[in-house]
């Protein structure tokens, strides 16, 4: 289907509309943006860049949050 791309998110395939930004991905996944941090292709995408950063096919995304740890 035209206009759809496949990326990897946290180790699994994810389809989304071409042109989706990192912020858009977070919204689509219904995540609370203030509770996540994002890497694309092993580079941090800072909070301020999430809107501008457009995802492209084959991008490898890590979406992380905080969990209990010592």
């Amino acid at each position: 289907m035209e206009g759809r791309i496949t990326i990897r998110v946290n180790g699994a395939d994810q389809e989304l509309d071409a042109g989706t930004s990192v912020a858009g991905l977070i919204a689509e996944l219904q995540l609370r943006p203030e509770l996540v941090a994002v890497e694309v292709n092993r580079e941090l995408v800072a909070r301020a860049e999430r809107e501008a950063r457009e995802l492209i096919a084959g991008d490898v995304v890590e979406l992380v949050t905080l969990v209990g740890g010592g």
Partner: protein
Amino acid sequence: MRTPQASETRPDADTALQVGKYTFQSRLLVGTGKYATFEQMAQALDISGTDCVTVAVRRVNLDPAKGESLLDHVDRSRYTILPNTAGCFDAESAVRTSLLARDLLETDLVKLEVLGDEKTLLPDPIGTLEATEQLAAAGFTVMVYTSDDPRLGVRLADAGAACIMPAGSPIGSGQGVLNPNAIRILMELVSQPVVVDAGVGTASDAALAMELGVEGVLLNTAIAGATEPLRMAAAMRSAVHAGRNAFLAGRIPIKLYANASSPMEARIAGAGSGA
């Protein structure tokens, strides 16, 4: 020897623990892992009196039925959050994790762990040193988990660590401080604060660590894994207070035997001499 600093006011008055630009009123740093529930965790943190809590960075759970977030249960106005790099086995992933944590928390504080293997969870000295250099250069306030090798501690200090955190014994082993002399020598060799991280199993371990003169104790499993975590949180709060003040108070010397606490003069006739 680190010289104890006396106080004039309350008999147990103390200075704060200063790590770079961060100030902690409590010398007990507490982890957030392994609790039965977030509620239990929040209660344990409250009872422990800590104002610095460690957290780990992990992939978001994308499952639709997502649970609550840890951060919903940690009041950031009360607690400084100290993200760790637990689970990283090389410098690169530890640095990436630190950058993610900084972006998420808007803090430059990080507890650096670069581990050597999954079996022992002991730190890899080379990866730890590399990551310390990179993070310090990137402006982080690095609290670095390390072995108790004093000269490795010097290397980490030279690389820019803000706080040296030797393991008393392996993570989760509950063996306490296995080599107090190594900690003592480390404190002589570095000017950064030294905090014992890992290995504390019970209250006397924490007290003994503080009596060595270290600036703080970081623990998690000892509280979360106790049969009654909340009671152990209370015990640890007291233990750190006890050990710190015993250090500052200047303990009596150790002798092979005997120094009467009751006077040997003016005893009644016939009390004898035992000679």
